[in-house]
């Protein structure tokens, strides 16, 4: 029997994307196909999660070649939970696009590009081979280049040029790092890599390679090297930014977590301390950015940066609480960031401006949008019954257990700045006197709130149902803490 189910979450968007190229002219059909396939993919991802829950880490050796020689898809709980989250976010963004993306963009293969982006993201989560990880990164990035430039506005062209340049550079570094790694240990399979690195006990050269990989993934994730992020994420339309904000940087975080819990965990004195301080600085700079701007989008973009810093800090503690906190917070943050960008997109469209100083009194015209924004903001801050709380609590607990008091303090303080920045948007935009409608304002369709509402229910569920989710998170954390589980699953079948 073969485990082909594991590859399905990747295969469905891939086939859908290809089919969408053929039927590109029939707009209605394109929407139907992409919508239906995204929903099917949620169910398949959920069934993979359930399989992993029941039977432990699942692997699929492509073409039937045994582990270190072929490409292995490894579905452990951490990866599959992220795949499920990706499928959910993908579906929400696709349905949101139906109401917000202009016909002009749709005609230029918009939905096909979204599907290929999902292929890249899901592939990155599932793969167990470091070169295949690079390939999946590229699939994701090439699709994101397309999405960021589609529409061809002047500022899109300018920012996509920067985005492409920085990512070409970081991809080159990634290949170089893989070449060094292959040169020194002679394998590309992650489980086998982990074994070989353990055998030679991570000497100087391997730590250097680890740091090179850290720089590469930090560039992708926006961990301190986030300078490309504010500009690039500001130019595409809301549906695309929601997709980017929910997925792209988080794939970088996933790669950091995977690399530093599976392969390079032998010399935490150097690498983990480095991650800790990079995360601390990221949180500080993110907080400064979130307070400095008055544009809705910029504030939210710097909130992404803060949460990346927070995740990095959770990883660097290398404690049990810290790891499950990272998993919890990552799942919550992917959904919450997608949701808040969706809502902000509707707000900006309705107000006709991005400047919070020119918005006022929108609660009376759009009460549903206003209260959804409010609840989402509370969830991001981490108010107890909602989803952000458990993850934050666990990461702080991990930080205290690892005696990182200063960084824990920064982490807690960054929450305050998140509150301040989000509440500032809410108070400026929704409270106050009702203002005249800006001339460039477009009344958004009420239906566009539906996918947002679905994500919001999910966020509330993650918070309230923490007890239900706990065994899943625990199982995911187990593999991160005991890489041997992963190695055994891949290499001894």
């Amino acid at each position, binding site marked *: 029997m073969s485990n*082909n189910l594991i590859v399905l979450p990747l*295969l469905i968007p891939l086939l859908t994307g290809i089919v969408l190229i053929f039927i590109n002219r029939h707009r209605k059909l394109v929407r139907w196909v992409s919508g239906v396939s995204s929903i099917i993919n949620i169910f398949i991802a959920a069934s993979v999660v359930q399989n992993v829950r029941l039977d432990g880490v699942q692997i*699929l050796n492509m073409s039937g070649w045994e582990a270190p020689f072929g490409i292995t898809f490894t579905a452990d709980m951490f990866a599959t939970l992220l795949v499920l989250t990706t499928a959910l976010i993908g579906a929400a963004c696709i349905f949101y696009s139906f109401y917000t993306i202009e016909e002009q963009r749709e005609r230029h293969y918009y939905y096909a590009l979204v599907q290929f982006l999902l292929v890249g993201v899901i592939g990155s989560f599932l793969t167990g081979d470091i070169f295949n990880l690079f390939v999946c990164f590229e699939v994701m990035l090439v699709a994101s280049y397309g999405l960021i430039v589609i529409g061809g506005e002047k500022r899109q062209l300018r920012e996509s040029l920067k985005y492409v340049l920085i990512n070409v550079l970081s991809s080159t570094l990634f290949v170089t790092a893989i070449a060094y790694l292959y040169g020194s240990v002679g394998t590309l399979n992650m489980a086998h890599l982990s074994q070989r690195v353990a055998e030679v006990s991570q000497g100087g050269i391997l730590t250097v390679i680890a740091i090179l990989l850290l720089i590469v993934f930090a560039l992708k994730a926006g961990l301190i090297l986030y300078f490309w992020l504010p500009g690039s994420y500001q130019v595409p339309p809301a549906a695309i930014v929601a997709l980017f904000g929910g997925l792209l940087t988080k794939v970088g975080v996933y790669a950091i977590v995977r690399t530093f819990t599976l392969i390079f965990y032998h010399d935490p004195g150097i690498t983990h301390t480095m991650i800790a301080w990079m995360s601390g600085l990221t949180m500080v700079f993110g907080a400064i950015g979130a307070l400095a701007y008055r544009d809705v989008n910029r504030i939210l973009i710097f909130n992404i940066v803060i949460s990346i810093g927070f995740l990095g800090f959770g990883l660097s503690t290398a404690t049990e609480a810290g790891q499950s906190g990272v998993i919890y917070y990552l799942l919550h943050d992917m959904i919450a960031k997608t949701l808040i960008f969706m809502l902000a997109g509707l707000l900006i469209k309705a107000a006709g401006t991005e400047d919070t100083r020119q918005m006022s009194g929108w609660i009376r015209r759009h009460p549903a949008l206003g209260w959804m924004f409010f609840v989402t903001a509370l969830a991001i801050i981490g108010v107890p019954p909602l989803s952000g709380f458990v993850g934050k609590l666990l990461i702080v607990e991990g930080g205290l257990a690892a005696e990182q008091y200063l960084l824990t303090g920064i982490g807690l303080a960054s929450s305050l700045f998140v509150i301040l920045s989000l509440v500032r948007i809410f108070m400026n935009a929704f409270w106050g006197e009702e203002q005249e409608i800006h001339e460039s304002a477009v009344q958004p369709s009420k239906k566009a709130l539906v996918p947002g509402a679905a994500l919001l229910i999910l966020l509330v569920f993650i918070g309230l149902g923490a007890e239900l989710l706990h065994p899943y998170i625990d199982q995911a954390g187990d593999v991160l803490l005991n890489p041997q589980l992963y190695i055994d699953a891949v290499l001894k079948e």
Partner: protein
Amino acid sequence: MRGNDVIVRTGSKWLSFIIIMFSFFIFMSGHNNPGGGFIGGLMAAGALVLVAVAFGTKVLYRLLPLNYRLVTAAGLLIAVLTGVGSFIFDVPFLTHTFGIYHLPILGETELATATLFDLGVYLTVVGVTMTIILTIGEDV
């Protein structure tokens, strides 16, 4: 305005056929010799570009009325479907197989499903290259 390019046109008439044949040869020999779908596809695209340069894109479209974006998609579809075939036989994704068959004319021949995957690569490369070149060429 076109100058007197009779030599280029006569030459490319012969050359493009030779290049296409050679690209097919390279494509078929990829399993046991250097070559394969990628280089074969590039070479076929080279032959088509030669036609486009010598005779203009209109003639190329009249000779081969293809939408190259669909050629790309067809190539991708073929490549993915050879992988999906493994679902039917309940073997791991992308498992390929081969068999030795007795064909008329050719005699004993080894037929491998990997060739179908390669055909997908071939079509994708032709499609992508021609889309890039024709899109840029027609904009001017």
